[in-house]
């Protein structure tokens, strides 16, 4: 059985302008959405606060639950139905960060029991003090930062056999991060600066594959964050784990396309880069679609059947896989092409733009 017939030749590269417009629009929308909301919607893990998942005997309106919490001054909490309508399960969220946590879970329990009777089942309590929340946020952001750093080093080293370059990149990145952090810049900005520096370094050190791959993964994670903001989902610790997995997945996809481009560039030296690239994407298209669909199928199963606790995690994966598949075809490769054109324009040898440094030396 075959979905994609061999010899297929869709001119993906021709649509790159449209793809840039689409991606640019999505990223811009994410940035605007985040700016409007005042940053990502962090969950209690990061902001500090309280989350209680409770199952009651029968349905109660959020108002009733708020009233029940009045005696312990938590009437400002946000009440949400959780999971199935029939389950009469609710999430109680308190965003106050200055709460005294000692004895609080007991207080919530007794307040609910005195209002709704003995049938109150507290299924989950998450209380995070402001200090721990801040710690966790720092940790998560550093995790993302290091993942990107190591992956950038790996790709440029292993993939382009430029280990020296990747070491230079790592050192300069570490230096920039050290410099900016000594000015007391927040970790969010630190990551944005680090990413920009990484992209800039890739550009100047001629690490074109790393440039494309890192661009694609920033693209994927940004749009997934946008989807979270749009659907009003919270970013918790587990979601950060999902993002990092996405980083791995997005690269996985990109690398497979790039690997084929590299192989074909070596095989067809006379043909224009754009053509070779397009052919490589077509050759790997079958695999790209197959793997994405099997992964999507299992993640969709998790999304539908996995239950409330894992729902958002599955959502992140679902969006990320779709965006990641799209970006490995329409974002990563066109960036590579852009770089090649730019270099070719600079050196004035338009037709030989595909030649890499090694070959130029040997001729």
């Amino acid at each position: 059985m075959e979905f994609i017939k061999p010899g297929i030749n869709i001119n993906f590269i021709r649509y790159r302008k449209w793809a840039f417009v689409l991606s640019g629009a999505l990223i811009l929308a994410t940035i605007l959405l985040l700016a409007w909301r005042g940053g990502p919607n962090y969950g209690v893990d990061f902001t500090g606060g309280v989350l209680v998942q409770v199952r009651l005997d029968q349905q109660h309106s959020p108002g009733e639950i708020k009233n029940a919490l009045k005696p312990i001054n938590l009437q400002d909490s946000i009440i949400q139905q959780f999971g199935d309508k029939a389950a009469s399960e609710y999430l109680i969220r308190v965003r106050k960060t200055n709460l005294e946590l000692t004895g609080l879970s007991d207080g919530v329990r007794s307040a609910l029991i005195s209002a709704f009777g003995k049938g109150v089942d507290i299924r989950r309590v998450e209380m995070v003090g402001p200090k721990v929340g801040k710690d966790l946020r720092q940790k998560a952001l550093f995790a993302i930062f290091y993942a990107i750093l190591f992956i950038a080093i790996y790709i440029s080293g292993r993939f382009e056999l430029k280990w020296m370059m990747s070491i230079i990149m790592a050192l300069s990145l570490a230096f920039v991060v050290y410099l900016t952090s000594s000015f007391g810049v927040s970790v969010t900005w630190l990551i944005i600066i680090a990413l920009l520096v990484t992209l800039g370094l890739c550009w100047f050190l001629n690490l074109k594959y790393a440039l494309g791959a890192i661009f694609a993964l920033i693209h994927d994670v940004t749009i997934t964050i946008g989807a979270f903001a749009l659907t009003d989902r919270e970013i918790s610790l587990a979601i950060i784990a999902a993002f990092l997995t996405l980083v791995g997945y997005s690269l996985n996809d990109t690398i497979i396309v790039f690997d084929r481009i590299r192989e074909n560039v070596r095989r067809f030296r006379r043909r224009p880069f754009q053509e070779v690239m397009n052919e490589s994407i077509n050759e790997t298209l079958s695999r790209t679609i197959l793997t994405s669909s099997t992964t999507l199928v299992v993640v969709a199963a998790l999304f539908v059947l996995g239950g409330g606790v894992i729902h958002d995690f599955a959502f992140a994966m679902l969006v990320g896989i779709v965006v990641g598949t799209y970006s490995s075809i329409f974002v990563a490769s066109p960036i590579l092409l852009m770089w090649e054109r730019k270099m070719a324009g600079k050196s004035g040898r338009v037709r030989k733009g595909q030649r890499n440094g090694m070959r130029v030396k040997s001729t």
Partner: protein
Amino acid sequence: MHGSESPVSKNLGLRAGIVTLVIVVALIYLVPSLTKNLPPWWSNVLPKDKIHLGLDLQGGIHLSLEVEAGKAVESNLERVVEELKNDLRKSKIRYLELKRSGKDGIAVKLMRDDDVTAFREMVHANYPDYDPGTPSYEDGKPVFHVVLLSKARERIMRMAVDQALETIRNRIDQFGVSEPDIRPQEGHRILIQLPGVKDPKRAIALIGKTALLEFKLVDEDHSVDEALKGHIPPGDEILYETSIDRKTGQRRKIPFLLKKRTLLTGEYITDARVQIDSRYNEPYVSLSFDARGARLFENITGQNIKKRLAIVLDNKVYSAPVIQDKISGGRAQITGRFSTDEARDLAIVLRAGALPAPVKILEERTVGPSLGKDSIEKGFKSAIIGGILVVLFMAVYYSLSGIIADLALVLNVVLIMSGLAFFGATLTLPGIAGIILTIGMSVDANVLIFERIREELRLGKTPRAAIEGGYGKALVTILDANVTTLIAALVLFQFGTGPIRGFAVTLSIGIIASMFTAIFVTRVVFDYLYTVKRMKKVSI
């Protein structure tokens, strides 16, 4: 490329042997997690550890506490203030004022200038942790600022954390939790993980109780009502007893006017047990003191007959009986309207000792056992349904080759589970998600290989050559693609906590296992079919 027939088969035998060995070992590690009753001969020789379930799957408590070590420093200062007063009295140095000043100092205003040297020598001799400094003069009187040395301050704080850790460990041991995990962390913090606790409320109360037991005299010369209006006599304080009316169930707070001075604390307790009062059939806690405590208790009771002695725990009055007679033998009782559980927990905290400083909850995560069970069921349901869909899809799309890939997939899941058992890793809910993700992604390697084989076949190569070429060309790509995910997983492991670590471990094991099954195992099967069995057509 075209190696002779025999080395391939010989090599094949070895590789098949490796695969069989891995499968057998994996199954051996998996058996304890699958069955409850292992035969005795099994437990003697073979592994018997089950896969650990994370708190989010089996239910339990995760607590992060901060020991308010500053309070330990404060109580040290307060004790030294009292001791200094005694010492000054003994060595006949007269003072006008002696009180705590600032965060870690004591201000002492002496009467006579002649005592300056004597005072300084006394501090040096008796209080090595303190520095008297040089006196300044106020109205012609010498004023010392005795300061707690920063090294000593550090030490007191560190000891407070160590002691708190030890005490909490004792309490949890006596409470009875299987496999508790209690460890110190930076910044005077203690991390506590209690899997499978049925009554989180009770466990948290038990851990967080300071359990400072004090015996204080009731001030019967002054009236409580006057004191409540704000005229508290010097050296006195008001503390309350909470009593619950047995008929109405209403809480009532009874004020007591007590002498501030603590006559005896719980530090001399050697044992505390729950006993049942035969008259009211109510539980109470009986205490035994060590020799020194017994002597102190005897003196206190002997000197204060017919007075009321209040038993105060964490600044709450439990009871204030009238001392009828001198009590020797070092025994006392704490009565109050306890339930059996409350009495039991009180006995535990008294036996384990008081915390050197109060603790504050920084983070609390509780998962009820019912939710954990739900999560496991739903997680496995989605894994099985997702898995079946992928298996069917592969079989339809790649025919026989697809079925070989399916075998690899099933083996992959078996390897992940036994890998978790082998490394003693913890399976968490995100971990289950990791397994599900691996199911989807592990076929990727086979898809890559199969697509390559198809390409090679289209070029008109023989089955053997096509398989050879397909595996060879796909290998580097598969390695590259997997290493990046592995990097992400390792970073997650380094920075993650609890469930996230579980996810990282599962993902890492999954990636490594999937490379083994998708590349190595399937190749063995292919080689068997197309070189040994000499199948003519590749079913792909």
